[in-house]
């Protein structure tokens, strides 16, 4: 439910409907359904929409029959002379028939409308999910997960009235009172005008509710709701911190603040609106309408200018002039919320996805080449603060701060690099040198701002993403396991993997025995049946890459530090290279650096040294200095261990 819908003013906006429905309907049609994505979704359902509207209108008009029957019965009974029995019964029958028609038609309309709504919601959600799966990863950085989840969940649900109620109910809310109004005018135009007084009063209050200030508050409310959603997600995920630093009053301040702000705005908004809203409610309330009609009618009857039976249709139909409007009140309010929700949905749909090539090229081999690659995060953070930070690379964000001062700063500044098949290339460099950003270009988390990344002689942008993913797999630090079985998690990139293969890679990363101990073995659902430790999660990620067995493997070795077994698993992944696999690794261990065929020393987003480890050491430059500092940082361990530490010796 949107803030607007649930606020007290909900009912009040009834009159907003009266005042601006014409505008609103046109408006909704243009702003809401006008977007190509949404309109395209609705087009196949046009027939159903028409049926919903037609049934609802017929039902609504038929619903007038019993009221007219009472009025007509009154005329017959009050007519001078003996009553016309046959006519009276015919009238009663007609009224009963009208009720039956109304019952059937409105029920059919509502049934079709709701089923239609369920269908449309499903296609909207699918469309959103599909789009979100193709937008550049950097785009996510500006939005909290909760906020986006709200778009796919609640916002789509909030469109419900627009689909299930709006077409039928709005149309009949206009057509039916219009029919009544025409009829009442033919009975007595003066009393018709008097009957309109309450509606006019209510409408007069509308401008008071639509002040810019209120509208600003409504926008704030929506934004505040998004913040609460995000804060709630954060709250639950950060609950361990909340508990550790205790004092319920303090630690979950983000949630409290979001809620407090929202409640504050809400109170202001409600305070501003409540008296007007309540006043409007009064003007439209049946007793007040009846009082106005009776007073007017009594005057007209007393001075003999109107026949007494003519009062009846006003008492019965006059209320109908406001009733649909009032009924719409809720609806209209929901509708406003639906429009805002639809706006947010359209914003998401409007995000340009990473372009797919029109004529995909076929890579030859899997030599990876970086040619004059520049990369900078966009000034607004659009390109990928978050994806980068999320991946958790030590270098990732540092790169962000260090490489540039101004917005639009470059993290990578003209990288030229060739990764030959069958070789391991180790990237080393201080924090913030751009290591994480560099390796993330290969699975195309970002596109370079200048220059190009080529795989088998083909620019990554000319590859279909499906082809790219068959060629490149990666293991980064930030491991996300899905709430799915262990087997499915391992086989993420190879959905039809044989169980035997899954077991094989699980054994390679020292997970097989642990998995067998789980309640349902490989079918154990992670996150539901069991929660895996950080090291286990990382080993699953490595198993994924091993199973995918792609010719290009990108690895962040920091992963290895979770525990010795994981470290060993990483080393196996590196060692189990196929003859011509291309491996790029952010190296943290001296062994890995020593084992690499090529070492790339990165500093400030540029390659400062490049060559075999022995060459570089001999050169006694930056790498040698870096090596020595690492060496001293680890000697204590190496010396203390009973085991043999060999990485510090070059072979």
């Amino acid at each position, binding site marked *: 439910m*949107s*803030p607007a819908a*649930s*606020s007290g003013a909900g009912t009040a906006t009834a009159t907003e409907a009266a005042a601006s429905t014409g505008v609103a309907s046109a408006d909704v049609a243009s702003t809401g359904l006008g977007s190509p994505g949404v309109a395209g979704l609705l087009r196949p359902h046009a027939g159903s929409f028409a049926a919903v509207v037609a049934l609802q209108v017929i039902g609504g008009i038929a619903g007038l029959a019993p009221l007219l029957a009472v009025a007509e019965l*009154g005329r017959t009974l009050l007519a001078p002379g003996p*009553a016309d029995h046959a006519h*009276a019964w015919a009238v009663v029958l007609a009224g*009963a028939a009208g009720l039956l028609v109304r019952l059937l038609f409105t029920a059919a309309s509502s*049934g079709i409308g*709701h089923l239609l*709504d*369920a269908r449309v*919601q*499903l296609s909207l959600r699918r469309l959103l*999910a*599909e789009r*979100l799966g193709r937008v550049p*990863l950097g785009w996510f950085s500006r939005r909290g997960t909760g906020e*986006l*989840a709200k778009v796919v*969940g609640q916002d789509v649900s909030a469109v419900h009235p627009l689909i299930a109620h709006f077409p039928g109910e709005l149309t009949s809310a206009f057509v039916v009172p219009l029919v009544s109004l025409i009829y009442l005018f033919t009975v007595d135009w003066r009393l018709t005008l008097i009957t309109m007084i309450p509606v006019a009063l209510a409408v007069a209050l509308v401008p008071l509710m639509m002040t810019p200030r209120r509208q600003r508050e409504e926008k704030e409310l929506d934004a505040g709701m998004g913040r609460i959603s*995000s804060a709630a*997600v*954060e709250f*639950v*995920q950060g*609950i361990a*911190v909340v*508990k*550790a630093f*205790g004092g*319920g009053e*303090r630690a979950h*301040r983000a949630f409290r603040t979001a*809620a407090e702000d929202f*409640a504050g705005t809400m109170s202001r908004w*409600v305070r501003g609106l*409540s*008296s007007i809203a309540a006043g409007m*409610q009064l003007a439209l309330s049946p007793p007040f309408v*009846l009082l106005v009609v009776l007073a007017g009618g009594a005057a007209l009857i007393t001075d003999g200018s109107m026949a007494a039976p003519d009062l009846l249709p006003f008492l019965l139909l006059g209320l109908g002039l406001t009733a649909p409007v009032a009924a719409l009140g809720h609806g209209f309010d929901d509708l406003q919320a639906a429009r805002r929700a639809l706006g947010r949905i359209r914003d998401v749909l409007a995000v340009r996805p990473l372009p797919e090539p029109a004529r995909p090229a076929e890579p030859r081999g899997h030599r990876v080449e970086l040619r004059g690659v520049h990369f900078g995060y966009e000034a607004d953070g659009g390109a990928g603060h978050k994806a980068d930070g999320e991946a958790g*690379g030590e270098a990732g*964000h*540092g790169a962000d701060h260090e490489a540039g001062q101004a917005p639009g700063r470059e993290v990578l500044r003209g990288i030229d690099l060739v990764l030959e098949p069958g070789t391991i290339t180790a990237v080393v460099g201080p*924090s913030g040198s751009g290591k994480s950003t560099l390796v993330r270009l290969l699975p195309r988390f970002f596109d370079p701002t200048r220059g190009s990344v080529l795989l088998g002689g083909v620019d990554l942008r000319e590859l279909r993403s499906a082809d790219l993913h068959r060629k490149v*797999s990666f293991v*980064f*630090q*930030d491991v*996300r396991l899905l*709430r799915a079985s262990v087997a499915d998690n391992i086989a*993420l990139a190879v959905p039809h993997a044989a169980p035997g293969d899954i077991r094989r890679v699980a054994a390679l990363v020292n997970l097989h025995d642990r998995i067998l101990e789980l309640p349902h073995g490989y079918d154990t659902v992670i996150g*539901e049946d069991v929660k895996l430790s*950080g090291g286990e999660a990382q080993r699953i990620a490595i198993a994924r890459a091993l199973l995918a067995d792609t010719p290009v493997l990108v690895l962040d070795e*920091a992963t290895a530090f979770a525990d*010795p077994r994981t470290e060993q698993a990483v080393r*196996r992944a590196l060692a189990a290279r196929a003859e011509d696999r291309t491996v790029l690794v952010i190296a943290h261990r001296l062994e890995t650096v020593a084992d690499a065929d090529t070492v790339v020393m990165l500093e400030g987003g540029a390659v400062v040294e490049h060559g075999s480890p022995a060459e570089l050491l001999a050169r006694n430059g930056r790498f040698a200095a870096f090596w020595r500092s*690492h060496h001293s940082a680890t000697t204590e*361990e190496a010396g203390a261990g*009973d085991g043999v530490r060999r990485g510090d010796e070059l072979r």
Partner: protein
Amino acid sequence: MIRMLLRLLGPAYAPPLRRTVALMTAAAVAEGLSYALLVPVLRALLGGTPADARPWLIAFGAAVAGYAALRYGSDLAGFRVGTALLRGVYHRFGDHLARLPLGWFTARRVGEVSVLASEGVLQAMGAVAHLLGPLISAGVTPLTIVVVLLAFDPLMGLAALAAVPVVALVQVWTGRSTAAGDAERAERGDEATARVVEYLQAQPVLRAGGRTAERFGALDDALSGLHRAARRSALSSLPGVLGLTFTVQAVFTALLALGAYLALGGDAGAAEVLAILVLAARCADPLLSLAHLGGSARATRHMLARLDAVLRTEPLPEPAEPVHPAGHGLEFDSVTFRQGGRTVIDGLSLSVPEGRRLAVVGPSGAGKSTLLQLIARFHDVDGGAVRVGGADVRAIGAEALMARIAIVFQDVYLFDGTIEENVRLGRPGATEAEVRAAATAARLDEVVARLPGGWAANVGEGGALLSGGERQRVSIARALLKDAPIVLLDEVTSALDPINEAAVHEGIDRLMAGRTVVMVAHRLKTVRRADHIVFLDGGRVVEAGSHDDLLRRHGRYAEFWNLSLTPSGPE
């Protein structure tokens, strides 16, 4: 529903809500009673003596004025209570979540809590602000009118009265028949939300795995499931709506026919019959709106029930008379802890004297992190006891216990806010100088100096805008600032390269100085700082001793370290 609202609101808000409900009921009764005056007015106007209508009309006007006052008052009260409820429920919700055991927070809860915190709380507020009034009025006003009808024309009144039990039955039946559908729909909705969150957060992995939306079956299954549940729930409410509408219309038709019969037969005055039919129409309208309102009420009640269920989940019990621990030593006394049917800690006993350092080593899933969590009482043990300063952690009280403990977690989670805010969490009352000192000790000052925005730099949701090492330094600074006598460390160096690690270790050394420390360690450097080491496997202590002792023993510990230090490839 009112009862549930009262419970959700808590005692502080209950009286205003009761007053509001009373006002709403009074307004509805007043509306029904005011219609009684329509009968004499219409009798006069339609009966050919319009002049007689005047006093009755004035009386009706007065009645409407009375109704108006009540109605206006109850509307305002509804808005007011609704807004107050919003605030109150948010407070209770937030505070309660913070008190629930960590075990409650499964992956699925993210979706549920996010829905409840936004949609749920708003719906509760909307219920008071604009559902309660119409609902009360739709029920009470027709009943009052029926009473009025009985007074004027017992025959037609009885006919109307006949509808009452039928309408009530239909409402009850509809509620039952739709409850299952609604519950299922809500459940599917939660599932879908959780899947969407997962889908969004796992985008990098999913893309790398070539799983676009259509190929990520879990999400599509959840969405289809939601669709099917929505269909079923829409269809299941249809018979109820039809039944209610049919009943009300049938009774109205019966009154119409009965009125015609009575009037034509001369048993009743035409004017009176017509007046009663006008009343009957007034009776029918609100009843018909019940169909629509009933649906909203059910949805709301369902949401309230879910909020209520969360608020009624038992937090970890607090001691009535908290015990004051003597000192800061730690002790596990035959502790057993089970989670999800698996025994995580199995009859474990160990002790850490005050000021000493214990390193916990072992394979993944051995229960190391759980051990730390039990000290901080994230969960309660299933058997045995965990003691701090000789006192059972369950007897100390959460606040007092947490005040003694500083934790540095394995996965550092930062709140969306500035670096300073995240450090200050350690001790909100700390002075500027203290915060700076803690930051310097944790070598966080370098990070702050590098960040655009410095102390005011935003860390992003979950700290996503910082790198792993930066996050860890924040968390160490936070713990340093807290300056608690007991320090729990969990795999602090997991995501660091050696240079960063040196920085972090320096911070940790300062953090550990003179404190009782339990650390989950994977790196030799960490282990060597400990006075005592336990090797954990399957929730049990397998080996214990000093590093050198353990290595000499050539047991599990020695094997473990050799494994970690031996390259796998052939030399």
